[in-house]
């Protein structure tokens, strides 16, 4: 009988129930969209910010400022002026290796052109293919680390293409203009260690100092500077967790100052300081330090965006709770005769509330499921317009949204249920 009553109530008063379901669906869709974006936005914002460069640089110990400070403690420094090319891949093997998005080595040297002017030449990876001994494979290099470079003519140097790997180069616009060269031309350079004719595959505009430089492959630069197998520095782009007190303490006083438990927490959190520390552990005689501004603003922007999302979610849920409350109250009011009658024929309050709540919850489930899929759509639309990419739907959003809907629906039903409990059959049944 209970189900016949529920069925009757749901199917024979469809329009009312559909209104309630739509309200719930709207709330649910906003919550779904916002939560998914919120959970995904961390990655998205980081990817956006990654476009503005690396957030960690790794240099040999001897070249670092820190070394100068520590040199006072009297330890014998066996520092190298270079890092080893073979060690680069180790960056990916650290505890937070998964958070390392990209990295590239640099070899800097100065070359002399045919007109006897000196120009900075940098050897690096463009889209270097790495097969790590962990089995992982990836492409690393400045193609993605300098994604804002505007290639004026020609194209990005493709290391994986036969021919360009050795002797290919990209030239900054300022230099290219001065020399009157463009892609397809060749450029003769020499150093004390040798000379080489580079073929220009692209001219780029970086909007900075790099516009006066030549970028070529690591091997070419090593050959020209006579530093085979060695590199000067590494730029790393890593996903990091915003710093907190613990991270600040570790960064200023050193990880050794932490208690074992704190150390554990710090080490196992993707703070920029713990990632730097782990890189130093992985690469011998290296000093990794954060490029401060970028790391901090990443955390800030993330915090703010997420706060905004949470506020929108709360507001939208609050809005739908109000909407539900209005609709359910109106529906109970409309049915006050029926409710009075059920009371008059001997139905206890809890049984009537049970029926009304069951109806609402079934409606909420229908609305919630519909809302989830609508929210999926919203999330994708927002993802496309704001981040130019799709939003990955996190399964953990489903239980969260379900719980939120139940809470919101029940909260929205409180006034109606209170009215239902207060309703006295004598007042509605004798048609005054």
């Amino acid at each position, binding site marked *: 009988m209970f189900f016949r*009553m529920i069925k009757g109530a749901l199917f*024979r008063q469809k329009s009312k129930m559909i209104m309630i379901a739509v309200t719930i669906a709207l709330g649910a869709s906003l919550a779904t969209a916002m939560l998914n974006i919120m959970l995904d936005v961390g990655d998205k914002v980081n990817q956006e910010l990654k476009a503005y460069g690396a957030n960690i640089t790794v240099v040999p110990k001897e070249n670092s400022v820190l070394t100068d400070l520590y040199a006072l403690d009297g330890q014998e420094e066996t520092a190298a002026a270079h890092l080893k090319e073979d060690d680069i891949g180790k960056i990916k093997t650290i505890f937070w290796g998964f958070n390392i998005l990209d990295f590239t080595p640099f070899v800097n040297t100065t070359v002399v052109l045919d007109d006897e002017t000196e120009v900075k030449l940098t050897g690096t990876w463009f889209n270097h293919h790495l097969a790590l001994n962990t089995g992982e494979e990836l492409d690393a290099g400045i193609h993605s680390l300098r994604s804002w470079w505007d290639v004026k003519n020609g194209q990005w140097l493709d290391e994986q293409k036969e021919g360009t790997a050795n002797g290919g180069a990209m030239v900054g616009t300022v230099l290219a203009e001065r020399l009157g060269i463009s892609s397809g031309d060749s450029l003769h350079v020499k150093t004390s260690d040798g000379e080489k004719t580079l073929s220009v595959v692209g001219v780029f505009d970086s909007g900075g100092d790099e516009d006066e430089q030549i970028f070529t492959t690591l091997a070419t630069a090593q050959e020209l500077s006579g530093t085979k197998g060695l590199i000067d520095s590494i730029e790393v782009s890593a996903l990091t967790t915003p710093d907190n007190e613990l991270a600040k303490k570790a960064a200023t006083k050193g990880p050794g100052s932490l208690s074992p438990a704190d150390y554990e927490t710090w080490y196992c959190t993707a703070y920029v300081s713990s990632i730097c520390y782990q890189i130093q552990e992985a690469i011998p005689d290296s000093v990794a330090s954060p490029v401060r501004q970028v790391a901090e603003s990443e955390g800030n922007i993330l915090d703010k965006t997420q706060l905004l999302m949470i506020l929108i979610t709360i507001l939208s849920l609050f809005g739908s709770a109000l909407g539900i409350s209005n609709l359910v109250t109106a529906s109970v009011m409309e049915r006050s005769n029926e409710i009075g009658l*059920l009371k008059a*024929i001997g139905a206890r309050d809890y049984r009537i509330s049970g029926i009304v709540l069951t109806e609402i919850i079934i409606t909420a489930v229908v609305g919630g499921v519909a809302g989830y899929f609508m929210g999926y759509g919203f999330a994708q639309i927002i993802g496309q317009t704001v981040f130019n990419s799709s939003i990955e739907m996190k399964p953990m959003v489903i239980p969260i949204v379900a719980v939120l809907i139940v809470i919101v629906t029940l909260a929205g039903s409180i006034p109606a249920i209170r009215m239902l409990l207060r309703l006295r059959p004598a007042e509605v049944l004798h048609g005054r």
Partner: protein
Amino acid sequence: MSLLEIKNVSKIYGPLKALDNVNLTVENGEWLAIMGPSGSGKSTMMNIIGCMDKPSLGEVILDGVDIAKESGKKLTEIRRDKIGLIFQQFHLVNYLTAVENVMVSQYYHSMPDEKEALEALERVGLKDRAKHLPSQLSGGEQQRVCIARALINHPEIILADEPTGNLDEANENIVIDIFKQLHRQGTTLIVVTHDPEVAEVAQRTVVLEHGRLVNEIKNEGFEE
């Protein structure tokens, strides 16, 4: 012992005495009509007898229990077990079919039993309309569903507040016939009415005016 004893009952709404020191006794199996002008307190009295309202003063002893002193929960139980209600506006649940409306009463009483509910509809001549929604039934038919619902749990007392108020002559007669039948089976009936024809068929008529019982007429020509 009488089935119902109303002793010195008053119902006071601010300055208004909807019932003013009413005394009335109803025997088991009796058929009583209550008449009176609009606003005289008839519905107020029915609500009190029907355990949906409490008197401001006085005692209402139904089947040995003073319902003026009982809690809301106990009153719900008494309504469920002892009282059958018939209303002028029928008050059927509009999204349930005729037979389901009868079954609702069974459901809150004990166990819904479709067969028994159909039998009750048969008694009021509505077996073939059992699957219709209230909106698909005429007023007279709706009132008969309402009567079937009131009867289904075999109440000791049936309270009908203007049961024929919204019905035409033909349907009024059908309802009166059902009441006669119920009376023969020993059901106690209290019927509020404006209609002298409906009052005439009862055993006894009491008249309320301004909340007081002003007259009591025994129906000499009452036919068992």
